[in-house]
Protein backbone atom coordinates (compact mmCIF):
# COMPACT_ATOMS: atom_id res chain seq x y z
CA UNK A 1 0.00 0.00 0.00
CA UNK A 2 1.22 3.46 -0.86
CA UNK A 3 -0.36 6.64 0.33
CA UNK A 4 -0.24 5.58 3.96
CA UNK A 5 2.33 5.65 6.74
CA UNK A 6 5.79 4.60 5.57
CA UNK A 7 8.25 4.49 8.43
CA UNK A 8 8.02 7.81 10.18
CA UNK A 9 7.09 9.79 7.06
CA UNK A 10 3.50 10.27 5.90
CA UNK A 11 3.43 9.80 2.15
CA UNK A 12 0.96 11.99 0.30
CA UNK A 13 -2.26 10.28 -0.69
CA UNK A 14 -3.01 8.94 -4.12
CA UNK A 15 -4.88 11.43 -6.33
CA UNK A 16 -7.53 8.83 -7.14
CA UNK A 17 -7.19 5.83 -4.85
CA UNK A 18 -7.18 2.49 -6.61
CA UNK A 19 -6.02 3.59 -10.06
CA UNK A 20 -2.84 1.57 -9.63
CA UNK A 21 -1.94 -1.40 -7.48
CA UNK A 22 1.14 -3.55 -7.01
CA UNK A 23 0.73 -6.96 -8.54
CA UNK A 24 0.37 -9.41 -5.62
CA UNK A 25 0.86 -6.50 -3.25
CA UNK A 26 4.62 -6.20 -3.88
CA UNK A 27 5.35 -6.75 -7.55
CA UNK A 28 5.40 -4.06 -10.24
CA UNK A 29 2.67 -1.44 -10.41
CA UNK A 30 -0.28 -2.08 -12.69
CA UNK A 31 -3.16 0.11 -13.76
CA UNK A 32 -6.44 -1.19 -12.40
CA UNK A 33 -9.60 -1.20 -14.47
CA UNK A 34 -12.63 -3.41 -14.68
CA UNK A 35 -13.40 -6.66 -16.45
CA UNK A 36 -16.99 -7.64 -17.10
CA UNK A 37 -17.65 -11.33 -16.42
CA UNK A 38 -20.79 -11.18 -18.55
CA UNK A 39 -19.49 -9.79 -21.83
CA UNK A 40 -15.74 -9.94 -21.34
CA UNK A 41 -15.16 -6.22 -21.87
CA UNK A 42 -12.14 -4.66 -20.17
CA UNK A 43 -12.13 -0.95 -19.42
CA UNK A 44 -9.97 1.64 -17.69
CA UNK A 45 -10.54 3.30 -15.28
CA UNK A 46 -12.74 0.94 -13.28
CA UNK A 47 -16.51 1.37 -13.49
CA UNK A 48 -19.50 0.50 -11.36
CA UNK A 49 -21.36 -1.07 -14.27
CA UNK A 50 -20.15 -2.40 -17.60
CA UNK A 51 -20.90 0.21 -20.27
CA UNK A 52 -21.49 -2.50 -22.85
CA UNK A 53 -23.93 -4.76 -21.05
CA UNK A 54 -24.57 -3.11 -17.63
CA UNK A 55 -23.12 -6.20 -15.95
CA UNK A 56 -21.28 -5.87 -12.65
CA UNK A 57 -17.60 -5.87 -13.49
CA UNK A 58 -14.70 -6.99 -11.31
CA UNK A 59 -11.63 -4.92 -10.57
CA UNK A 60 -8.70 -6.21 -12.56
CA UNK A 61 -5.19 -5.13 -13.49
CA UNK A 62 -5.14 -3.98 -17.10
CA UNK A 63 -1.41 -3.63 -17.62
CA UNK A 64 1.91 -2.95 -15.94
CA UNK A 65 3.85 -1.95 -19.05
CA UNK A 66 3.38 -1.10 -22.69
CA UNK A 67 4.55 0.98 -25.60
CA UNK A 68 4.04 4.68 -26.22
CA UNK A 69 1.37 5.26 -28.87
CA UNK A 70 1.82 9.02 -28.85
CA UNK A 71 2.91 11.80 -26.51
CA UNK A 72 3.38 15.51 -26.05
CA UNK A 73 5.23 17.83 -23.72
CA UNK A 74 2.96 20.54 -22.34
CA UNK A 75 4.78 23.85 -22.06
CA UNK A 76 1.97 26.19 -21.02
CA UNK A 77 1.04 27.00 -17.48
CA UNK A 78 0.72 23.61 -15.82
CA UNK A 79 -2.51 22.70 -14.02
CA UNK A 80 -2.56 21.09 -10.56
CA UNK A 81 1.01 22.18 -9.76
CA UNK A 82 2.46 19.79 -12.31
CA UNK A 83 6.06 20.46 -13.38
CA UNK A 84 6.64 22.88 -16.24
CA UNK A 85 7.01 21.37 -18.73
CA UNK A 86 5.30 18.05 -18.15
CA UNK A 87 4.80 15.12 -20.48
CA UNK A 88 1.70 13.06 -21.21
CA UNK A 89 0.91 10.31 -23.65
CA UNK A 90 -1.22 7.37 -24.65
CA UNK A 91 0.23 3.94 -23.97
CA UNK A 92 -0.78 0.64 -25.54
CA UNK A 93 -0.80 -1.69 -22.55
CA UNK A 94 0.60 -5.18 -22.81
CA UNK A 95 -1.99 -7.85 -22.17
CA UNK A 96 -5.26 -5.92 -22.19
CA UNK A 97 -4.40 -3.99 -25.35
CA UNK A 98 -6.08 -0.92 -23.90
CA UNK A 99 -4.74 2.46 -25.06
CA UNK A 100 -4.72 4.67 -21.97
CA UNK A 101 -3.86 8.28 -21.27
CA UNK A 102 -1.44 9.21 -18.52
CA UNK A 103 1.37 11.36 -17.27
CA UNK A 104 4.91 10.46 -18.20
CA UNK A 105 7.85 10.72 -15.79
CA UNK A 106 8.98 14.36 -16.29
CA UNK A 107 12.61 13.20 -16.38
CA UNK A 108 11.85 11.57 -19.73
CA UNK A 109 10.36 14.64 -21.39
CA UNK A 110 13.30 15.24 -23.71
CA UNK A 111 13.79 11.67 -24.87
CA UNK A 112 10.35 10.49 -25.90
CA UNK A 113 9.69 8.54 -29.09
CA UNK A 114 6.58 6.88 -30.45
CA UNK A 115 6.81 3.16 -29.75
CA UNK A 116 9.16 3.27 -26.79
CA UNK A 117 8.66 0.93 -23.86
CA UNK A 118 7.29 2.26 -20.58
CA UNK A 119 6.02 0.78 -17.35
CA UNK A 120 3.49 1.94 -14.82
CA UNK A 121 4.72 3.76 -11.72
CA UNK A 122 3.41 6.01 -8.97
CA UNK A 123 5.11 9.36 -8.32
CA UNK A 124 4.70 12.34 -6.12
CA UNK A 125 3.62 14.79 -8.80
CA UNK A 126 1.61 17.98 -8.47
CA UNK A 127 -1.30 18.62 -6.12
CA UNK A 128 -4.91 17.51 -5.89
CA UNK A 129 -8.00 19.67 -6.31
CA UNK A 130 -7.51 20.98 -2.76
CA UNK A 131 -3.86 21.90 -3.34
CA UNK A 132 -2.38 19.01 -1.35
CA UNK A 133 0.65 17.19 -2.75
CA UNK A 134 -0.39 13.81 -4.06
CA UNK A 135 0.72 10.67 -5.84
CA UNK A 136 -0.18 10.30 -9.49
CA UNK A 137 0.23 7.25 -11.71
CA UNK A 138 2.88 7.77 -14.38
CA UNK A 139 4.46 5.97 -17.26
CA UNK A 140 8.24 5.75 -16.84
CA UNK A 141 11.23 3.97 -18.37
CA UNK A 142 11.09 0.24 -17.88
CA UNK A 143 14.15 0.42 -15.64
CA UNK A 144 12.97 1.94 -12.36
CA UNK A 145 14.47 5.30 -11.51
CA UNK A 146 15.26 6.99 -8.22
CA UNK A 147 12.00 8.89 -8.41
CA UNK A 148 10.02 5.73 -7.74
CA UNK A 149 7.88 5.87 -4.67
CA UNK A 150 7.12 3.17 -2.19
CA UNK A 151 10.00 0.70 -2.70
Amino acid at each position, binding site marked *: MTGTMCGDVTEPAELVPGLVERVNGRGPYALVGSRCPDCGATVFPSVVRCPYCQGQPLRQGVGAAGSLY*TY*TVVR*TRAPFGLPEPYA*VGYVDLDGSGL*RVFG*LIDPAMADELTVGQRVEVGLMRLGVDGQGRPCLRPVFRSEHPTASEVGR
Partner: protein
Amino acid sequence: MSGEVYIAGIGSTAFGRQPDVSLLELAAEAGRRALADAGIKPADVGIGFFANALAGKLFGDLTIGQNVFAALGMSRLPIANVENACTSGSTAFYLACLAVRAGEVDCAMVIGAEKMCVPQLGLLSSGDSELDTLLGLVTPASFAMRARRHMAEFGTTVEQLAQVSVKNRSHGVLNALAQFRSEVSLGEVLASPMIADPLTRFQSCPIADGASALIVCSESMARRLGARITVRAATLSTGNYDNPQDMVRWRTDREGVEKAYEIAGVGPADLDVIECHDAFTIAEILHYEALGLCPVGEGGRLVAEGVTALGGSKPVNVSGGLLARGHPVGATGVEQIVELTRQLRGNAGARQVHGARLGLAHCMGGDRAADTKSMTVAVLAA
Protein backbone atom coordinates in the same frame (compact mmCIF):
# COMPACT_ATOMS: atom_id res chain seq x y z
CA MET B 1 -34.81 15.58 -44.46
CA SER B 2 -38.54 15.79 -43.92
CA GLY B 3 -39.66 19.40 -44.22
CA GLU B 4 -37.13 21.81 -45.68
CA VAL B 5 -35.47 24.29 -43.35
CA TYR B 6 -34.08 27.59 -44.59
CA ILE B 7 -31.63 30.13 -43.24
CA ALA B 8 -33.58 33.37 -42.90
CA GLY B 9 -31.10 35.62 -41.14
CA ILE B 10 -27.56 35.85 -39.80
CA GLY B 11 -25.72 38.19 -37.47
CA SER B 12 -22.41 38.33 -35.63
CA THR B 13 -20.39 40.59 -33.41
CA ALA B 14 -16.67 41.00 -33.86
CA PHE B 15 -14.66 38.24 -32.17
CA GLY B 16 -11.84 39.12 -29.80
CA ARG B 17 -11.10 40.75 -26.50
CA GLN B 18 -14.09 42.94 -25.56
CA PRO B 19 -13.69 43.72 -21.86
CA ASP B 20 -16.36 46.43 -21.82
CA VAL B 21 -19.14 44.43 -23.40
CA SER B 22 -21.15 41.98 -21.32
CA LEU B 23 -22.08 38.49 -22.45
CA LEU B 24 -25.68 39.66 -22.58
CA GLU B 25 -24.90 42.63 -24.78
CA LEU B 26 -22.68 40.61 -27.13
CA ALA B 27 -25.43 38.05 -27.57
CA ALA B 28 -28.16 40.65 -28.00
CA GLU B 29 -26.16 42.52 -30.63
CA ALA B 30 -25.69 39.38 -32.70
CA GLY B 31 -29.42 38.74 -32.34
CA ARG B 32 -30.36 42.26 -33.44
CA ARG B 33 -28.25 41.90 -36.54
CA ALA B 34 -29.82 38.56 -37.40
CA LEU B 35 -33.34 39.96 -36.98
CA ALA B 36 -32.45 42.91 -39.18
CA ASP B 37 -30.82 40.64 -41.74
CA ALA B 38 -33.92 38.46 -41.90
CA GLY B 39 -36.17 41.50 -42.03
CA ILE B 40 -38.43 40.16 -39.32
CA LYS B 41 -39.75 41.35 -35.98
CA PRO B 42 -39.02 39.66 -32.65
CA ALA B 43 -42.62 38.47 -32.53
CA ASP B 44 -42.08 36.49 -35.72
CA VAL B 45 -39.73 34.11 -33.91
CA GLY B 46 -41.44 31.07 -32.45
CA ILE B 47 -38.67 29.51 -30.39
CA GLY B 48 -35.24 30.55 -29.14
CA PHE B 49 -32.10 28.53 -28.40
CA PHE B 50 -29.15 29.99 -26.55
CA ALA B 51 -25.76 28.30 -26.72
CA ASN B 52 -23.04 28.90 -24.17
CA ALA B 53 -20.49 26.64 -22.55
CA LEU B 54 -18.65 28.47 -19.80
CA ALA B 55 -20.75 31.12 -18.09
CA GLY B 56 -22.02 28.73 -15.41
CA LYS B 57 -18.49 27.80 -14.48
CA LEU B 58 -16.96 31.27 -14.89
CA PHE B 59 -19.73 33.54 -13.63
CA GLY B 60 -22.18 31.26 -11.80
CA ASP B 61 -24.98 32.29 -14.14
CA LEU B 62 -27.96 30.22 -15.21
CA THR B 63 -30.74 30.46 -17.80
CA ILE B 64 -28.90 33.23 -19.61
CA GLY B 65 -30.75 32.78 -22.87
CA GLN B 66 -33.95 34.11 -21.31
CA ASN B 67 -32.14 37.36 -20.49
CA VAL B 68 -30.72 37.60 -24.00
CA PHE B 69 -34.04 37.07 -25.73
CA ALA B 70 -35.77 39.42 -23.28
CA ALA B 71 -33.28 42.14 -24.20
CA LEU B 72 -34.42 41.64 -27.80
CA GLY B 73 -38.04 42.04 -26.79
CA MET B 74 -38.73 38.34 -27.17
CA SER B 75 -40.97 36.99 -24.45
CA ARG B 76 -43.71 34.34 -24.10
CA LEU B 77 -41.87 31.94 -26.43
CA PRO B 78 -40.12 28.66 -25.71
CA ILE B 79 -36.44 29.20 -24.88
CA ALA B 80 -33.86 26.54 -24.10
CA ASN B 81 -30.25 26.88 -23.00
CA VAL B 82 -27.95 24.40 -24.68
CA GLU B 83 -24.41 23.30 -23.85
CA ASN B 84 -22.31 20.87 -25.83
CA ALA B 85 -18.74 22.18 -25.37
CA CYS B 86 -17.40 23.58 -28.66
CA THR B 87 -20.48 22.34 -30.50
CA SER B 88 -22.90 24.21 -28.24
CA GLY B 89 -23.83 26.59 -31.05
CA SER B 90 -24.21 23.99 -33.75
CA THR B 91 -26.17 21.75 -31.38
CA ALA B 92 -28.55 24.65 -30.82
CA PHE B 93 -28.82 25.00 -34.59
CA TYR B 94 -29.57 21.29 -34.90
CA LEU B 95 -32.36 21.61 -32.33
CA ALA B 96 -33.73 24.72 -34.03
CA CYS B 97 -33.98 22.77 -37.28
CA LEU B 98 -35.83 20.00 -35.42
CA ALA B 99 -38.33 22.51 -34.05
CA VAL B 100 -39.12 23.74 -37.57
CA ARG B 101 -39.25 20.24 -38.99
CA ALA B 102 -41.59 19.13 -36.20
CA GLY B 103 -43.97 21.89 -37.24
CA GLU B 104 -43.72 23.37 -33.76
CA VAL B 105 -42.78 26.77 -35.18
CA ASP B 106 -42.31 28.50 -38.51
CA CYS B 107 -39.24 30.31 -37.33
CA ALA B 108 -36.52 29.55 -34.80
CA MET B 109 -33.63 31.65 -33.60
CA VAL B 110 -30.25 30.51 -32.36
CA ILE B 111 -27.85 32.73 -30.49
CA GLY B 112 -24.44 31.49 -29.42
CA ALA B 113 -22.20 33.62 -27.24
CA GLU B 114 -19.20 33.32 -25.00
CA LYS B 115 -17.17 35.65 -22.83
CA MET B 116 -13.79 34.04 -22.21
CA CYS B 117 -11.33 36.91 -21.93
CA VAL B 118 -11.63 37.06 -18.15
CA PRO B 119 -9.00 36.45 -15.49
CA GLN B 120 -10.70 33.39 -14.03
CA LEU B 121 -10.70 31.44 -17.31
CA GLY B 122 -7.71 29.15 -16.72
CA LEU B 123 -6.89 26.34 -19.11
CA LEU B 124 -9.72 24.70 -20.96
CA SER B 125 -10.27 21.04 -20.25
CA SER B 126 -12.98 18.50 -20.65
CA GLY B 127 -14.45 19.07 -17.17
CA ASP B 128 -12.85 19.55 -13.78
CA SER B 129 -13.98 16.17 -12.44
CA GLU B 130 -12.67 14.06 -15.32
CA LEU B 131 -9.80 11.71 -14.53
CA ASP B 132 -7.97 12.79 -17.69
CA THR B 133 -8.15 16.42 -16.56
CA LEU B 134 -6.71 15.51 -13.16
CA LEU B 135 -3.90 13.71 -14.98
CA GLY B 136 -2.98 16.84 -16.93
CA LEU B 137 -4.98 16.50 -20.16
CA VAL B 138 -5.41 20.10 -21.25
CA THR B 139 -7.06 20.62 -24.64
CA PRO B 140 -3.90 21.53 -26.59
CA ALA B 141 -2.24 18.32 -25.37
CA SER B 142 -5.07 16.26 -26.76
CA PHE B 143 -4.47 17.60 -30.26
CA ALA B 144 -0.68 17.69 -29.89
CA MET B 145 -0.76 13.94 -29.33
CA ARG B 146 -2.78 13.47 -32.49
CA ALA B 147 -0.23 15.61 -34.33
CA ARG B 148 2.71 13.62 -32.99
CA ARG B 149 1.11 10.37 -34.07
CA HIS B 150 0.19 11.76 -37.49
CA MET B 151 3.80 12.78 -37.99
CA ALA B 152 5.04 9.36 -36.90
CA GLU B 153 2.65 7.39 -39.08
CA PHE B 154 2.46 9.53 -42.19
CA GLY B 155 5.55 11.71 -42.19
CA THR B 156 3.50 14.85 -41.76
CA THR B 157 5.89 17.74 -41.10
CA VAL B 158 5.76 20.65 -38.70
CA GLU B 159 5.86 22.92 -41.75
CA GLN B 160 2.69 21.30 -43.09
CA LEU B 161 0.99 21.77 -39.73
CA ALA B 162 2.09 25.38 -39.57
CA GLN B 163 0.82 25.97 -43.09
CA VAL B 164 -2.75 25.62 -41.78
CA SER B 165 -2.17 28.68 -39.62
CA VAL B 166 -0.48 30.60 -42.40
CA LYS B 167 -3.48 29.90 -44.65
CA ASN B 168 -6.18 30.69 -42.10
CA ARG B 169 -4.44 33.83 -40.88
CA SER B 170 -4.22 35.02 -44.48
CA HIS B 171 -7.97 34.42 -44.76
CA GLY B 172 -8.58 36.29 -41.51
CA VAL B 173 -7.10 39.42 -43.07
CA LEU B 174 -10.20 39.47 -45.26
CA ASN B 175 -12.70 39.11 -42.40
CA ALA B 176 -13.50 42.31 -40.54
CA LEU B 177 -14.97 40.30 -37.64
CA ALA B 178 -11.84 38.20 -37.08
CA GLN B 179 -9.68 38.54 -34.00
CA PHE B 180 -6.36 38.26 -35.92
CA ARG B 181 -6.23 40.35 -39.06
CA SER B 182 -2.57 40.10 -39.96
CA GLU B 183 -0.70 37.49 -41.95
CA VAL B 184 1.92 35.29 -40.35
CA SER B 185 4.79 33.53 -42.08
CA LEU B 186 5.63 29.87 -41.72
CA GLY B 187 8.70 30.91 -39.76
CA GLU B 188 6.66 33.03 -37.38
CA VAL B 189 4.19 30.22 -36.73
CA LEU B 190 7.00 27.78 -35.99
CA ALA B 191 8.94 30.29 -33.88
CA SER B 192 5.99 31.25 -31.70
CA PRO B 193 6.10 29.79 -28.18
CA MET B 194 5.63 26.05 -27.95
CA ILE B 195 2.33 25.16 -26.25
CA ALA B 196 2.40 21.37 -26.50
CA ASP B 197 4.94 19.74 -28.83
CA PRO B 198 4.66 20.05 -31.82
CA LEU B 199 1.92 22.72 -31.58
CA THR B 200 3.01 26.32 -31.13
CA ARG B 201 0.88 29.20 -29.94
CA PHE B 202 0.10 30.32 -33.48
CA GLN B 203 -1.19 26.82 -34.18
CA SER B 204 -3.73 27.15 -31.35
CA CYS B 205 -6.91 29.16 -31.71
CA PRO B 206 -7.16 32.22 -29.46
CA ILE B 207 -9.81 32.58 -26.80
CA ALA B 208 -12.29 35.34 -27.57
CA ASP B 209 -15.42 37.18 -26.59
CA GLY B 210 -18.06 37.06 -29.29
CA ALA B 211 -21.54 36.11 -30.39
CA SER B 212 -23.31 34.87 -33.50
CA ALA B 213 -26.96 34.39 -34.36
CA LEU B 214 -28.98 32.53 -36.91
CA ILE B 215 -32.63 32.50 -37.84
CA VAL B 216 -34.03 29.41 -39.50
CA CYS B 217 -37.51 29.04 -40.94
CA SER B 218 -39.92 26.83 -42.79
CA GLU B 219 -40.26 26.77 -46.54
CA SER B 220 -43.41 28.85 -46.53
CA MET B 221 -41.84 31.56 -44.44
CA ALA B 222 -38.67 31.44 -46.56
CA ARG B 223 -40.75 32.07 -49.64
CA ARG B 224 -42.34 35.08 -47.98
CA LEU B 225 -38.97 36.45 -46.87
CA GLY B 226 -37.11 35.63 -50.06
CA ALA B 227 -34.67 33.43 -48.11
CA ARG B 228 -33.06 30.90 -50.40
CA ILE B 229 -30.30 29.12 -48.46
CA THR B 230 -31.51 25.66 -47.47
CA VAL B 231 -30.32 23.29 -44.80
CA ARG B 232 -29.61 20.05 -46.61
CA ALA B 233 -28.40 18.29 -43.47
CA ALA B 234 -27.93 19.13 -39.81
CA THR B 235 -26.46 16.30 -37.76
CA LEU B 236 -25.29 15.80 -34.22
CA SER B 237 -23.47 12.76 -32.92
CA THR B 238 -21.28 11.65 -30.09
CA GLY B 239 -18.15 9.49 -29.96
CA ASN B 240 -17.93 5.71 -29.98
CA TYR B 241 -15.26 5.66 -27.22
CA ASP B 242 -14.03 2.23 -28.33
CA ASN B 243 -10.66 1.33 -26.93
CA PRO B 244 -8.18 1.44 -28.56
CA GLN B 245 -8.99 4.59 -30.50
CA ASP B 246 -7.05 5.20 -33.68
CA MET B 247 -6.19 8.82 -33.04
CA VAL B 248 -5.25 9.64 -36.63
CA ARG B 249 -8.01 7.74 -38.46
CA TRP B 250 -10.77 9.36 -36.45
CA ARG B 251 -13.70 7.03 -36.83
CA THR B 252 -16.22 9.30 -35.09
CA ASP B 253 -15.20 12.16 -37.35
CA ARG B 254 -15.49 10.08 -40.51
CA GLU B 255 -18.80 8.49 -39.55
CA GLY B 256 -20.27 11.84 -38.56
CA VAL B 257 -19.35 13.28 -41.93
CA GLU B 258 -20.63 10.25 -43.82
CA LYS B 259 -23.98 10.50 -42.09
CA ALA B 260 -24.32 14.14 -43.13
CA TYR B 261 -23.26 13.36 -46.71
CA GLU B 262 -25.86 10.64 -46.86
CA ILE B 263 -28.67 12.83 -45.56
CA ALA B 264 -27.72 15.68 -47.89
CA GLY B 265 -27.14 13.35 -50.83
CA VAL B 266 -23.74 14.86 -51.55
CA GLY B 267 -20.07 13.92 -51.37
CA PRO B 268 -16.79 15.74 -50.92
CA ALA B 269 -16.56 16.44 -54.64
CA ASP B 270 -19.71 18.53 -54.44
CA LEU B 271 -18.52 20.92 -51.73
CA ASP B 272 -17.60 24.46 -52.73
CA VAL B 273 -16.76 25.89 -49.32
CA ILE B 274 -16.04 24.35 -45.93
CA GLU B 275 -15.79 25.68 -42.41
CA CYS B 276 -14.21 23.20 -40.04
CA HIS B 277 -13.15 23.09 -36.43
CA ASP B 278 -9.50 24.16 -36.67
CA ALA B 279 -9.02 24.64 -32.93
CA PHE B 280 -5.46 23.50 -33.65
CA THR B 281 -3.69 23.07 -36.98
CA ILE B 282 -3.66 19.28 -36.76
CA ALA B 283 -7.43 19.29 -36.29
CA GLU B 284 -7.98 20.85 -39.71
CA ILE B 285 -5.68 18.26 -41.29
CA LEU B 286 -7.53 15.40 -39.62
CA HIS B 287 -10.85 16.86 -40.71
CA TYR B 288 -9.68 17.05 -44.36
CA GLU B 289 -9.17 13.32 -44.15
CA ALA B 290 -12.47 12.63 -42.40
CA LEU B 291 -14.28 14.80 -44.95
CA GLY B 292 -12.72 12.78 -47.75
CA LEU B 293 -10.95 15.77 -49.26
CA CYS B 294 -7.85 13.58 -49.47
CA PRO B 295 -6.81 10.06 -48.49
CA VAL B 296 -5.94 9.35 -44.86
CA GLY B 297 -2.46 10.60 -44.04
CA GLU B 298 -2.31 13.13 -46.86
CA GLY B 299 -3.88 16.09 -45.12
CA GLY B 300 -0.52 17.75 -44.57
CA ARG B 301 0.25 17.58 -48.26
CA LEU B 302 -3.21 18.94 -49.14
CA VAL B 303 -2.72 22.17 -47.26
CA ALA B 304 0.88 22.52 -48.40
CA GLU B 305 -0.30 22.32 -52.02
CA GLY B 306 -2.73 25.17 -51.53
CA VAL B 307 -5.82 23.11 -52.33
CA THR B 308 -7.65 24.32 -49.23
CA ALA B 309 -6.72 27.99 -49.50
CA LEU B 310 -9.00 30.65 -50.92
CA GLY B 311 -8.55 30.25 -54.66
CA GLY B 312 -7.83 26.52 -54.31
CA SER B 313 -10.29 23.88 -55.39
CA LYS B 314 -11.50 23.05 -51.83
CA PRO B 315 -11.30 26.24 -49.80
CA VAL B 316 -11.48 25.55 -46.05
CA ASN B 317 -11.99 28.19 -43.36
CA VAL B 318 -11.95 31.19 -45.67
CA SER B 319 -13.41 33.09 -42.71
CA GLY B 320 -10.07 32.64 -40.98
CA GLY B 321 -11.38 29.68 -39.01
CA LEU B 322 -10.94 29.41 -35.30
CA LEU B 323 -7.22 30.08 -35.73
CA ALA B 324 -7.70 33.63 -37.02
CA ARG B 325 -11.32 34.45 -36.19
CA GLY B 326 -10.99 33.34 -32.57
CA HIS B 327 -12.98 30.77 -30.63
CA PRO B 328 -15.70 32.07 -28.31
CA VAL B 329 -16.89 28.55 -27.59
CA GLY B 330 -20.67 29.05 -27.59
CA ALA B 331 -20.57 31.20 -30.73
CA THR B 332 -18.22 29.15 -32.92
CA GLY B 333 -20.65 26.53 -34.16
CA VAL B 334 -23.15 29.24 -35.06
CA GLU B 335 -20.59 31.47 -36.74
CA GLN B 336 -19.46 28.66 -39.06
CA ILE B 337 -23.01 28.41 -40.41
CA VAL B 338 -23.29 32.20 -40.57
CA GLU B 339 -20.14 32.27 -42.70
CA LEU B 340 -21.43 29.57 -45.03
CA THR B 341 -24.60 31.58 -45.46
CA ARG B 342 -22.61 34.66 -46.43
CA GLN B 343 -20.66 32.60 -48.93
CA LEU B 344 -23.71 30.93 -50.43
CA ARG B 345 -25.47 34.26 -50.72
CA GLY B 346 -22.42 35.63 -52.51
CA ASN B 347 -21.99 38.30 -49.85
CA ALA B 348 -18.60 37.38 -48.46
CA GLY B 349 -16.73 40.29 -50.00
CA ALA B 350 -13.01 39.89 -50.54
CA ARG B 351 -13.06 36.31 -49.29
CA GLN B 352 -15.98 35.21 -51.49
CA VAL B 353 -15.58 31.75 -52.97
CA HIS B 354 -16.80 32.42 -56.46
CA GLY B 355 -19.87 30.54 -57.47
CA ALA B 356 -20.21 28.76 -54.11
CA ARG B 357 -23.42 26.70 -54.17
CA LEU B 358 -22.86 24.04 -51.53
CA GLY B 359 -21.14 24.46 -48.18
CA LEU B 360 -20.39 22.33 -45.15
CA ALA B 361 -19.77 23.33 -41.54
CA HIS B 362 -18.06 20.86 -39.24
CA CYS B 363 -17.61 21.24 -35.50
CA MET B 364 -16.34 19.10 -32.67
CA GLY B 365 -16.36 19.47 -28.92
CA GLY B 366 -15.19 17.79 -25.75
CA ASP B 367 -12.63 15.09 -25.19
CA ARG B 368 -13.35 11.65 -23.80
CA ALA B 369 -11.35 8.45 -24.06
CA ALA B 370 -9.30 9.77 -27.00
CA ASP B 371 -12.51 10.48 -28.86
CA THR B 372 -14.78 13.52 -29.23
CA LYS B 373 -17.85 13.99 -27.06
CA SER B 374 -19.83 15.84 -29.68
CA MET B 375 -19.71 16.39 -33.40
CA THR B 376 -21.96 18.34 -35.70
CA VAL B 377 -22.18 18.77 -39.43
CA ALA B 378 -24.37 21.16 -41.37
CA VAL B 379 -24.71 21.12 -45.14
CA LEU B 380 -26.19 24.23 -46.71
CA ALA B 381 -27.11 24.90 -50.32
CA ALA B 382 -27.85 28.05 -52.29
